[in-house]
């Protein structure tokens, strides 16, 4: 037992070093040239730097890196908890339709823009987008919660979630059909996901929201561990399943809603990272998996962000595509490795 916890500590130190290294490296990546020296100066003696360099570091790099770190962590934790609650290795923040709900909110604002009479582009009205996606995510969450109050079986909730996703996606495509091409393009660009559109002030706003929610969810690790062995077993161990479900769903919706609002629907990460954490730490214990998913989610999204900037010199590739390409091989490999288990 002792050696096990020592081993985990070492692993945590290693992934934390990788995490810090990627944060520093990601700060130097981008269209303008910023060296590691500039970053060090920015931290210790910002007066040596020109104001334009400071602006670039703060508004573009720092904002982007903070977003990657927080969004990666939030989505990874959401995915982990969904997989536990649904006892399904394929669950992620996507399956409940929460990301799609946020997407619908954004679609109503962006695609329906001409209908409502304001045709502001997606870049200049971040706060409207934020509000719309938050409301969209919350609306789907309410629906799911209402269902989960009535339905005992978690699989039925999963099916309802998938159906809601489908319906919402269909509504969006109908809206796309009737919208003009400028708005459609700006919506499609939003769905590709981006960490670059987030300003420093917005990225700072993400930190307390996500940190608070993840911290609260961490305190539910013990009942979550009991849930792994099935709902009725957890019930005999004194877990209040309905309450736990409501807390986890609300937490996941807040995390997914906030991240989706700022960065667009980032798929796949929430599915892949929990599996990577389980594999690295060789445990099913949420007291270990939640913090490790926080770090590995950030590492994963930082890698995706770096690649999306480095691979194509002329601009930034869509991050959603990059993280899927990055994550899929991991999942295939992990599935092939342990075929006999579920989560």
């Amino acid at each position, binding site marked *: *037992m002792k050696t096990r916890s020592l081993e985990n500590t070492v692993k945590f130190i290693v992934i934390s070093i990788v995490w810090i290294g990627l944060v520093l490296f990601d700060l130097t990546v981008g269209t303008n040239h910023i060296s590691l020296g500039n970053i060090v100066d920015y931290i210790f003696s910002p007066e040596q730097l020109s104001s334009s360099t400071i602006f670039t570091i703060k508004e573009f790099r720092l904002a982007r890196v903070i977003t990657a770190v927080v969004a990666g962590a939030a989505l990874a934790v959401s995915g982990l908890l969904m997989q536990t609650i649904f*006892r399904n290795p394929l669950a992620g923040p996507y399956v409940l339709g929460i990301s799609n709900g946020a997407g619908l909110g954004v679609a109503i604002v962006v695609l329906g823009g001409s209908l409502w009479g304001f045709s502001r582009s997606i870049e200049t009205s971040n706060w409207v987008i934020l509000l719309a996606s938050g409301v969209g995510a919350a609306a789907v969450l309410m629906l799911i919660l209402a269902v989960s109050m009535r339905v005992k079986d978690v699989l039925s909730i999963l099916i309802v979630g998938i159906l809601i996703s489908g319906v919402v996606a269909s509504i969006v495509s109908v809206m796309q059909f009737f919208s003009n091409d400028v708005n459609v393009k700006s919506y499609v660009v939003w769905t590709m996901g981006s960490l670059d559109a987030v300003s420093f002030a917005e990225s700072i706003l993400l930190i307390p929201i996500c940190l608070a929610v993840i911290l609260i969810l961490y*305190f539910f*690790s*013990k009942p979550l*561990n*009991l849930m*792994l*062995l*099935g709902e*009725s*077993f957890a*019930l*005999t*161990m*004194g877990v*209040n399943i309905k309450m736990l479900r409501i807390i986890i769903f609300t937490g996941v919706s807040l995390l997914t809603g906030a991240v989706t609002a700022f960065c667009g629907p980032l798929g796949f990460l929430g599915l892949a990272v929990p599996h990577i954490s*389980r*594999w690295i*730490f*060789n*445990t*099913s*214990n949420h*007291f270990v998996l939640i913090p490790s998913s926080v770090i590995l989610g950030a590492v994963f999204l930082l890698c995706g962000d770096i690649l999306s900037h480095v691979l194509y010199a002329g601009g930034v590739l869509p991050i959603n595509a990059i993280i899927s390409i990055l994550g899929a091989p991991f999942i295939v490999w992990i599935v092939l490795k*342990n075929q*006999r*288990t*579920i*989560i």
Partner: protein
Amino acid sequence: MMNQKVLEISNLRIGYKRVLSLQPISLSAYRKDLICLIGRNGTGKTTLLNTLSGVIKPMGGDFNICGQPVSSIPARKKSLYVSFVPSKIDAVANMTLRNLIAIGRTPYTNIFDHQQAKDQQLIEQVIAKFSLEALADRALSDVSDGEKQKAMIARSIVQQTPLILLDEPTAFLDFFAKQQLLQELKQIANTENRCILFSCHDVEMAVEVCDKIWLIDQGKLQELSKNQFNEMNYLKTDDHKK
């Protein structure tokens, strides 16, 4: 302390989805009792076990565990009175047998599930008692159903509840493993001073080791001694086969 009453069921009505499964039940069970619950499929064995373990609510009446009416025990405290061993558990990736057995201590640990030295000692003792040392660090996905079952029973011992309920513990075992398990249950009931109630379809084998039989027949649950049961010639008569 001897023959302390663990379970006292009075006029308990059980059922599922508002359909009453059985006539009202009034029975008692004591420490060191090993009771086998027998009945045909769909007669309400699992409903009874689920009701006693708190998974479903009784439709009427109540039962006491160690003198406490169950309706007055808060949900999170119930796991100090009853432990339940389902007939089969799914394999959870990266969960070892030791992790599984340690789950039995969760009703006693704090919010961070911190195990104290005495918790760990107890876990190691029980692992040794069940001769699971060699398997303790293996993942659930890498052991047989019988070994998982054994670990799950070890978990319920670690939980130190006066009442242990098992739903068809012999279902996935081979002939010899079944006999061995039943002997082990008998020993646990005696040496650990527990009351054990389990449902079973291996009637002859189970009746052999049990002191008491709870038979569900024609909508009625009745307690029989081994002799009474044998005299009944349950397996040969046709009354309950309809």
